[in-house]
């Protein structure tokens, strides 16, 4: 107990290398697929080759007769036991939620739907036996285009029809905003269907001992999964342990209660032996839930000086064949974000959820918000073009000014806590060299350069940090949005942190250690972060929606506060000073006046010994905190993209990309940089590369990574990134960052392409803007100009 005034350097804000990376990048960890249990069997699924068909018979006899095959089951063999996969978000009281057995029994409704399973001693035998299962089908008409699926006479996906729900929303007098508006623009945009493509495929192992089951799964949501397995499949919650070991990415695709997880549990119970399943990439492309797939009609009304009056949005959202965990809610996460950063008088929104005979859609990085941001940022460019204004000028005229925060948007439902669009945009313009590029563009256009330069703007914001429980309740979501953390002070002064926020690549172990190091004043390396196992971390809401830091981080701070409060009582006894005179900083408790001090580690040891605790004080510093946020988190930023479009081939090359993000306070800038880089890449992928394509019979054509083009580092530019900092209204001042890049970048890229080609009369190209689509748009525009002299083309239909 020696006096010192030296405080340790702040961990928060330091670019710490990630603690978890060594074991991840060297493979020194246990992925679910690496697990080997005694007696473990392997499952392989027989999947429907038809988009829509009645199953007339399933003959398992040949497969069952194969050496090494232990069992085989069809959907009928599970009967009522297999229940129905849950949809936790019945967005309207009259929503149609079809029965969704994990394995089809009578009818299949998408290519890849499981119709039988074989269980064998090894994976090879299981895969061989799949070919010996004989399933007979009576094909039915597929439903592949939701724009006609609601027409009378359309074939039906389910008996109840093809409409799942209609969700209207609005605020302000929309008719007044549009009536007599000098400028009204309407556009139709397409959010193509995407495949999440996490690096680690889904994998599951189920093992029963008596009436207790352990499920290992490559999941984002061990806690939600445990609850769902209990609530919907009748296994007592206390008998279920879910373990998400290290998980290799999810992007929302592992925010799911999967058919294969449920079937693994049932089969392991039937056979009395552990079973394992790991999907192949092609199987995953077909049967991991897809993302996006919306048709957007957006109309904007403005005054002639560019001031916005109102915005109308009408969405058709493809649910796919069934409603999975949050399928119907995904478009609604975007419903509040179409107004973006702009002020206006009125807003109306309607979403119609429609069934098709395709893989169900569900959350995919950004979930609803990329779609909204794309539409508003695209149409703001159209408005600028209509009015002859610069795209940045029209935005500045309409955005919320920094002194106006907190600001309740036109939705009436959201209050943005902080932001500074002026600062982020000014910094981005400077880094980008906006004015010089505009001059170069004018010069190249004037000399008719065959390679056109285009500049794209995206001044985005989003809502994340999901979410205040009362808001989720008002949206009919089936759970809360809180997060939990526990701190265990070990006798030696080391710290175990338990988080309910289950990381799958985000770097929680590092960031959480940095926060706790500062809060408790203990060294970074003395902290261990535990997560992803419901027996170790019994309480949590898991990781999605850029919520971990903004919600889970706050739970962590709350738990640290409680540790300090408990320790202070014991420290004051050790210091023989009244508690109210004891101050805590830098890991030390000091008696008033700068006298004696005691380190928190010494308090931990004294607590463990418990020899001299004050009366009534329990010998523990451990604490828990469950934090429910007051509000969402609203990161924002300005992304600027310059593209060169080769008009002879249609090839788009990104020449430069500047991202200035405002995510409030930063805990670890390296992790933030990684999230921004990856996020931008994923948004660029939607703009230029990726699309899940079904053919006219409902077969998925993009089943391999040779057909579904995920860009790599070689295809992407070096980003210029910077940050502005408008602290959020939580104690850490932090906002989410996991989805921001993906939300921002797609419209920046497409706006740049259209900016390059607008002089040719092109005002939209359907995503992904492949070279062929860009070339066809140019050819069509040129042909139109040659024959009619007009200058407008929608070009680029798929």
């Amino acid at each position, binding site marked *: 107990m020696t006096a010192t005034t030296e405080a340790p350097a702040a961990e928060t804000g330091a670019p710490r290398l990630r603690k978890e990376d060594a074991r991840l990048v060297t493979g020194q960890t246990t992925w679910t697929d690496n697990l080997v249990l005694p007696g473990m069997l392997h499952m392989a699924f027989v999947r429907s080759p038809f988009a829509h068909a009645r199953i007339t018979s399933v003959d398992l006899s040949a497969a069952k007769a194969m050496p090494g095959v232990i069992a085989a089951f069809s959907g009928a063999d599970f009967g009522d036991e297999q229940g129905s996969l849950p949809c936790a978000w019945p967005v309207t009281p009259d929503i149609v939620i079809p029965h969704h057995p994990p394995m089809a029994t009578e009818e299949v409704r998408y290519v890849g739907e499981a119709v039988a399973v074989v269980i064998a001693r090894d994976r*090879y035998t299981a895969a*061989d036996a799949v070919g010996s299962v004989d399933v007979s089908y009576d094909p039915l008409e597929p439903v592949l285009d939701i724009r006609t699926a609601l027409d009378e006479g359309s074939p039906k996906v389910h008996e109840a029809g093809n409409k799942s729900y209609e969700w209207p929303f609005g605020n302000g007098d929309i008719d007044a905003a549009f009536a007599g508006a000098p400028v009204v623009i309407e556009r139709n945009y397409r959010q193509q269907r995407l495949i999440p493509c996490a690096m680690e495929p889904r994998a599951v192992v189920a093992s029963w001992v008596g009436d207790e089951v352990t499920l290992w799964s490559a999941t984002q949501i061990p806690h939600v999964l445990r609850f769902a397995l209990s609530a919907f499949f009748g296994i007592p919650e206390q008998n279920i342990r879910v373990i998400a070991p290290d998980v290799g990415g999810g992007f929302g695709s592992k925010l799911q209660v999967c058919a294969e997880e449920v079937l693994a549990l049932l089969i392991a119970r039937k056979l009395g032996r552990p079973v394992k399943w790991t999907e192949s990439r092609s199987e995953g492309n077909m049967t991991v839930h897809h993302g996006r797939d919306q048709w957007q009609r957006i109309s904007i009304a403005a005054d002639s000086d560019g001031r916005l009056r109102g915005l109308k949005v009408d969405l058709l959202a493809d649910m796919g064949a069934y409603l999975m965990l949050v399928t119907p809610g995904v478009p609604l996460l975007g419903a509040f974000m179409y107004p973006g950063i702009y002020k206006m008088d009125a807003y109306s929104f309607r979403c119609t959820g429609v069934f098709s005979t395709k893989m169900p859609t569900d959350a995919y990085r950004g979930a609803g918000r990329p779609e909204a941001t794309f539409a508003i940022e695209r149409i703001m460019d159209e408005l600028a073009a209509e009015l002859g204004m610069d795209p940045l000028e029209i935005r500045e005229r309409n955005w919320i000014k920094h002194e106006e925060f907190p600001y309740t948007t036109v939705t009436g439902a959201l209050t943005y806590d902080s932001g500074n669009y002026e600062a982020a945009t000014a910094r981005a313009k400077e880094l980008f060299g906006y004015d010089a590029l505009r001059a170069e563009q004018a010069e190249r256009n004037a000399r008719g350069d065959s390679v056109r330069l285009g500049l794209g703007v995206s001044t985005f914001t989003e809502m994340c940090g999901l979410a205040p429980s009362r808001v989720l309740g008002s949206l009919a979501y089936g759970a809360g949005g809180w997060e939990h953390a526990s701190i265990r002070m070990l006798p030696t002064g080391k710290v175990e942190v338990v988080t309910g926020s289950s990381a799958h690549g985000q770097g929680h172990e590092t960031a959480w250690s940095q926060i706790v190091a500062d809060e408790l004043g203990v060294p970074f390396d003395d902290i261990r972060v535990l997560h992803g196992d419901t027996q170790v971390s019994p309480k949590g809401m898991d990781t999605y929606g850029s919520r971990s830091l903004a919600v889970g981080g706050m739970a962590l701070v709350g738990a640290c506060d409680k540790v300090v409060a408990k320790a202070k009582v014991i420290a004051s006894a050790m210091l023989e000073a009244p508690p109210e005179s004891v101050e805590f900083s830098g890991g030390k408790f000091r008696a008033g006046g700068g006298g004696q001090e005691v380190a928190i580690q010494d308090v931990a040891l004294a607590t463990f010994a418990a020899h001299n605790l004050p009366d009534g004080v329990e010998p523990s510093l451990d604490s828990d905190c469950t934090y429910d946020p007051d509000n969402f988190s609203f990161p924002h930023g300005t992304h600027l993209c310059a593209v060169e479009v080769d008009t002879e*081939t249609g090839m788009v090359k990104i020449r430069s990309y500047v991202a200035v993000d405002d995510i409030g306070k930063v805990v670890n800038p390296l992790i933030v940089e990684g999230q921004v880089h990856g996020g931008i890449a994923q948004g660029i992928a939607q703009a230029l590369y990726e699309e899940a394509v079904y053919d006219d019979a409902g077969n998925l054509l993009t089943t391999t990574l040779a057909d579904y*083009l995920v860009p*790599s580092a*070689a*295809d992407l530019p070096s980003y210029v990134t910077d940050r502005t900092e408008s602290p959020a209204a939580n104690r850490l001042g932090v906002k989410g960052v996991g989805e921001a890049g993906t939300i921002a970048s797609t419209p920046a890229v497409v706006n740049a392409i259209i900016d390059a080609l607008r002089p040719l009369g092109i005002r939209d190209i359907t995503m992904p803007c492949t*070279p062929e689509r860009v*070339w066809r748009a140019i050819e069509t525009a040129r042909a139109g100009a040659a024959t009619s002299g007009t200058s407008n083309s929608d070009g680029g239909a798929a």
Partner: protein
Amino acid sequence: MIPAQFDYVKPGSLDEAVRALADGGEDAKVIAGGQSMLPLLRLRLAYPSLLVDIGGIDELRGVTDAGDSLLIGARTTHYQVVHDPLIAEHCGLLAQAAGTVADPAVRHRGTLGGSLAHADPAGDLPAVVLALEATMIARGADGDREIPAAEFFVDYLTSSLAPGEILTGVRVPKLGSDWGYRYEKFHRTAQAWAIVGVAALARRSNGHVAEARIALTNMGAVPVRASAVEAVAAGAAASRDALHAAAAGAADGTEPPADLHGAPDYRRHLARVLTGRALAAAAGA
């Protein structure tokens, strides 16, 4: 990877490999770097009864100066082709094109011989050896056989190798320093196959193109020579305008495929544009 069952041998010599392949019957297949075979096995598009792994046969690896030609062993990896000084000096087109194959991991494992024997018209190197007028050397039970590139690629994924024959090497005629070259590959991502590729060689003399050779990737079931362009280019001024004009017939007689990355008319258009660019670059225009 969960392939169907197959037998596997890894012979230590070429003679052993030829015997193993013959003994294995018609469903026996050769594997070297595995960069074409493994995806087929993984997708269960191939069901070989036996894989003869020639990956242990060192005599099939490396580049030899054979006077007026280079002899390149079939097992020479793309990475080695890219970095070999003899190839750089005498047939740089091959090195440049090999550098565009897939990604570094594939280039370190994939081999020149494997890529040619696979005879994928979307592969880059078949068109390149066609333009280089190279000769394939195959070993079978009856000894060695030499097959000109123009006769080697017979159909989609089909070469003129007989069952039981192993491609052992490629003889590439040396080109003089008056030859220029360019492989123009058009693809959507770095790892993707060419939508269209153009391998161009041009011999320049007194500001003109004296001789040109053009071969096209992925414009039909096999790599094809753009003979019409070659004829027009010979004698043309080595200028961008003249050579782009010469490329107008690049797609004549081709039957390009239709897939997610391009319809046939788009591929024909690309063939014309890229041939003009490749030819101009090869001629230094």
